[in-house]
């Protein structure tokens, strides 16, 4: 039989149970809130670390590039010095030529004056002297040589200008927007920068077929070409060929850079794109070139692949997506 005291006891139990449940719920809510806050803070921290990592990576790419350019600087200086040398020599010769020609012009002036004054004797003497000088100084040859020296000097200066422009495309900071570019221009510019590394022992076989434009950061992509070309050159011990080929598929532009050098042992192939992995002697490589190149190509939505046979050579294939504006056409 249910009594009033039983009902009262049941009610007490239920009240206590309810209070416990409520307290437990509040505690659970508190825990949830704490967890949410922790999660937010952890995410915030992660975001900061990610940003800092991205910044570090940017600096790393820049440092690697500057290190590469630094290592190439002696060769680049040589490439610039060579034309500067012959341009200087040409200008010096031209200065001597100008002296001779200037003397002749003065003598012709005097002939004109003598003729005007009716002094036939003076004019005839001066003309004889002019003829003697023309003979002695080989004026006809000199005039022809002037043109040759000027053309050669202009060519030399153009070479210097191209090298400097190519260098500028490497060393400018990576803040500018992506552009639609013909990768063949980048390959040519890069070849100018690394030419001194290749020219003594490599025949460079360029098969640069017409390719669609690629939307990219030209400075960064040139950095990839530079790494691959320098590596190709270093793989060749005495004499060899570096072959650069461009082609395209439906969606990608394909640049292949191969050498017939020493090749890469199988056990090193998998480590090739690992940061700080290098087989070069200390001071010759940062060990970052290929890992940075990998990062650059990946950032551009492309791929970089390598195949190699020891003793036969190595081929790197870079694939980059065709610019959306090109594929829309």
């Amino acid at each position, binding site marked *: 039989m249910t009594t009033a005291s039983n009902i009262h*006891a*049941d009610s007490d*139990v*239920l009240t*206590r*149970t309810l209070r*416990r449940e409520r*307290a*437990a*719920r509040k*505690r*659970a809510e508190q*825990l949830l809130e704490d*967890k949410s806050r922790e999660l937010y803070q952890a995410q915030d921290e992660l975001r900061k670390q990610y940003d800092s990592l991205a910044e570090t990576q940017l600096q790393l790419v820049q440092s690697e590039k500057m290190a590469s350019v630094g290592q190439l600087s002696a060769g680049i200086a040589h490439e610039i010095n060579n034309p500067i040398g012959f341009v200087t020599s040409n200008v010096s010769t031209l200065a001597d030529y100008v002296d001779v020609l200037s003397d002749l012009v003065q003598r012709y002036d005097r002939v004109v004056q003598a003729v005007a004054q009716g002094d036939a004797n003076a004019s005839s003497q001066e003309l004889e002297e002019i003829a003697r000088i023309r003979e002695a100084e080989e004026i006809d040859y000199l005039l022809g040589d002037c043109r040759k020296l000027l053309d050669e000097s202009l060519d030399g200066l153009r070479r210097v200008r191209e090298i400097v422009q190519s260098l500028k495309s490497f060393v400018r900071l990576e803040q500018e927007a992506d552009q639609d570019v013909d990768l063949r221009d980048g390959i040519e510019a890069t070849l100018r920068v690394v030419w001194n590394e290749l020219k003594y022992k490599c025949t460079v076989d360029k098969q640069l077929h017409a390719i669609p434009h690629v939307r990219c950061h030209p400075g960064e992509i040139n950095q990839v070409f530079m790494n691959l070309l320098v590596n190709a050159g270093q793989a060749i011990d005495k004499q060899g060929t570096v072959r650069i080929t461009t082609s395209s598929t439906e969606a990608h532009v394909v640049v292949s850079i191969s050498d017939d050098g020493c090749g890469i042992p199988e056990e090193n192939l998998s480590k090739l794109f690992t940061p700080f992995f290098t087989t070069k002697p200390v001071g010759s490589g940062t060990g970052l070139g290929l890992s940075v190149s990998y990062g650059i190509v990946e950032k551009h939505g492309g791929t970089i692949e390598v195949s190699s046979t020891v003793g036969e050579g190595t081929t790197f294939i870079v694939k980059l997506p065709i610019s959306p504006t090109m594929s829309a056409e």
Partner: protein
Amino acid sequence: MKGIVFTCLNEMVEDTFGVAAWDDMLGQAHLDGVYTAADTYADAEMLALVGAMSDRTGTAPADLIREFGKYMLPKMAEQYPVFFPPGMVARQFLLSVHDIIHVEVKKLFPDAELPTFQYEMPADDQLVMVYRSRRQLCVLAEGLIEGAAAYFGEQLRYKQSQCYHQGDDHCRIEICFMGPGTRGDENDNCQ
């Protein structure tokens, strides 16, 4: 000990003996009984609750804890179905406790102090679980093993050849699986 063990015990007591019984037990153990699954509580609270429950039912604490393990397993399956994929059998489940379930528990509750299990597989139908825990609650593991058998509809036998409570430094639970629908006394290779 994680709060989920307490909330599960709370459910078991209320389901079996009613709301008033749990309320009584809390009063007897002098506990406020505010338990939340994600929080952590002193082991002593669990011991006090089991003590109170033993006093109330006249059942030995070890038997109560084993029963609790049996009760807890299907509750876990209900709450964490990801650990009980279709087609799983009891042996697979028990093998997943240390390397999968406890790893996931640690992700949710980094402060959880979990027992460790090492496994030996002497035969396809046998499994040895070597249990180590400061809490020495091997009977809870036994209850969970029995609960797993019931949940997966299997028959199994087990025995402890070594145990903390016999002076050993770990517990060795030797399990023999007898498949679904077979009786314990048939095809019993578990000697």
